[in-house]
């Protein structure tokens, strides 16, 4: 006869890894234990996420970048398409504080000299002259969020009528202001990443869910499709598809075509994940239990299954956005993605494609830094969300 001393409560290590109530084993237990037992899942996720300092900082960086994508006009100093062939390749003018005459914020003016040998304009800092800069200055007119007409910019010259200009990140070949172009590029690059991921999620959840829930032949067909798409080399396929977009398409048409092309191959990873989740969840005790007590199919799916992995999907999509951003950047960089007059990070980097341009104007590489910072922040944020949402995997 074997007789088990069933422990009244299982010890913390043996708690099941899934289910909304399962994730209660927080280290700061003790007196707060009661609060933890009754907290909803999203609150638990948030508590865990808060502990991940770096992810929290990354989240703030991401929010800041998102405001640039929403309000590029506000952050820019000059119209992004305004060119001035005389003022080409001006090096970045650093923002400085406290000039001798008491000006709080200013930049050093530049003066051009024509190189006698190459006959090129060369710009050097003009030690004599400063350009006073102020916050919330008046500049070119625009519609905030496309709705509110205004001419207020984060930074601008103190006296708009003086005709003074300054370039925080220098100018390009055509004398366009790199800073302002970077702000506008942020909108395009970030939103392409976001929309492409949203499309991928939609496709992934739809097909992955169908596959995982119905099983059988449907599952088999979708599985084979995913395998096929995943064994295709994505880069040449994207290139061929974007290259076949008609040249005379408008910026908007190209924009949407590119998001669709990117998500066409991008949904498979998510689809696979969703299917796997559905399959393993179907076997979970709490799902079986829900079915046994007579919950209907929709209730089982939406009340019991989906809540266990929507945080996971948020994490997966946060991690997918940077991949899409890099893809758009390299396509545009190669001249196959967004095309001028559109501005994206890739289009900006196209100006720095060869050694001659970089040697002449290394600051043209700076949009690359924007790519790195954004991708870095999104990756760390995504890892943080994933760890918080899924502490057991």
């Amino acid at each position, binding site marked *: 006869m*074997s*007789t088990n*001393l069933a422990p*009244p409560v299982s*010890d913390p290590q043996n708690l099941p890894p899934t289910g909304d109530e399962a994730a209660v084993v927080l*280290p700061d237990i*003790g007196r707060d234990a009661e609060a933890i037992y009754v907290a909803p899942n999203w609150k638990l996720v948030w508590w865990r996420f808060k502990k991940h300092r770096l992810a929290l900082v990354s989240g703030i960086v991401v929010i800041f970048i998102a405001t640039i994508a929403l309000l590029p006009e506000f952050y820019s100093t000059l119209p992004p398409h305004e060119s001035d062939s005389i003022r080409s390749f001006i090096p970045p003018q650093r923002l400085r504080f406290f000039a001798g005459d008491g000006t709080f914020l200013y930049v050093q003016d530049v003066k051009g000299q024509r190189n006698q040998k190459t006959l090129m304009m060369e710009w050097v800092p003009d030690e004599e002259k400063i350009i006073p800069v102020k916050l919330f200055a008046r500049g070119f007119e625009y519609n905030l969020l496309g709705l509110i007409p205004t001419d207020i910019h984060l930074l601008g010259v103190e006296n708009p009528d003086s005709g003074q200009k300054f370039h925080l990140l220098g100018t390009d070949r055509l004398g366009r202001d790199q800073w302002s172009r970077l702000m506008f590029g942020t909108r395009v690059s970030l939103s392409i990443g976001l929309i492409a991921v949203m499309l991928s999620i939609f496709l992934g959840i739809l097909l992955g869910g169908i596959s995982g829930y119905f099983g059988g032949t449907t599952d088999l067909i979708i599985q084979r499709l995913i395998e096929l798409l995943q064994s295709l080399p994505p880069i040449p396929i994207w290139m061929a598809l974007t290259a076949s977009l008609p040249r005379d398409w408008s910026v908007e048409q190209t924009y949407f075509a590119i998001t669709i092309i990117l998500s066409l191959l991008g949904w498979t990873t998510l689809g696979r994940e969703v299917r796997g989740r559905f399959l393993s969840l179907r076997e979970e005790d709490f799902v079986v239990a829900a079915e046994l007590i007579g919950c209907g199919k929709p209730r089982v799916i939406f009340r019991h299954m989906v809540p266990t992995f929507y945080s996971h999907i948020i994490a997966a999509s946060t991690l997918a956005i940077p991949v899409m951003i890099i893809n758009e950047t390299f396509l545009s960089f190669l001249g196959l993605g967004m095309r001028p007059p559109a501005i994206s990070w890739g289009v900006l980097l196209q100006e720095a494609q060869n050694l001659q341009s970089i040697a002449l104007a290394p600051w043209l590489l700076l949009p690359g830094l924007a790519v790195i910072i954004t991708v870095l922040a999104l990756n760390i944020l995504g890892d943080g969300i994933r760890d918080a949402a899924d502490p057991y995997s």
Partner: protein
Amino acid sequence: MNNQQPLLSVRNLKTYFSLDEGQVKAVDGVSFDVNPGQVVGIVGESGCGKSVTIKSILRIIQKPGKIVDGQILFRHNGDSMLDLTQLNAQSEQMRQIRGAEIALIPQEPMAAFSPVHTIGNQIEEAILLHQPVSKQQARKIAIERLREVGVPSPERRIDSYSWELSGGLRQRAMIAMALSCNPKLLIADEPTTAIDVTTQAQVLNLLRDLQAQHDAAIIFITHDLGVIAQIADFVVVMYLGRVMETGPVDDIFHNPQHPYTKALLKSIPTVTSESGSRLPTIEGAIPHPFNRPAGCPFYPRCIEMMPGTCNTSTPSLQPVTDTQSASCFLYHKQTDDE
């Protein structure tokens, strides 16, 4: 038998885990002896520290765990008593004791075998680590051991992977590995929990037979009182990292002293109990490891608790009958507090 010098003597062992959130006293002053050829059963609920105790003996406690106090005296090479806590866990000497003189039979043979190495490979490895034999000889010994533990056609099975074997065979293979170097002490960590009941009995019988043949001592860990009754000579009852009661198996089952042991025994269903009656359970729950009560760890659930005594100081383990010892103020006033 009890007049002999013990093979292993654990004295006041304390193994703590330092976590960010505080210290977990997984083993907090455990003492017991194992005599040669004796089967000592350690019984207790999950989380009572029995696994940590045996890992401490084997010196395979991983960070952040640490033996902070106490002695583990092991009769090494004949007569000298060696204190294992004084050895470096990674030292040559300790590694020669592990596997060769003290061997482990783990809880889940499925997980304890590597799935990508054959069982033969893993048994031979244990032999080659401790015996000066060639690879071919090691393989021969391994086949012999497999035959001894009742694995059919061992010449063929030796090249199987653990997941190709049934649960019972897997545990037999594990036992073969543990026996491969003729250890003086076998430590069996709930070896029957992962297998079904009929196979359990076979494995227990096998262990008893082998123990008699090899004249090895066994420390048998389980939460199953039925298994203890079948196999053990001597019983150690643990609760929250402390020993509650020790004694020969018959005395523990027929004349329990400590209220915890009594409560445990009451919660066993018997054939004579009336059908439909409620099975008595122990009131309350095991406290959270970070939230241990002061005083006797069992007092919050104890029906014989004496306020002002049990919740202020910790009773030490003292002899209470000719054969049994208990940590309980019902029998003595000795405390363990410094």
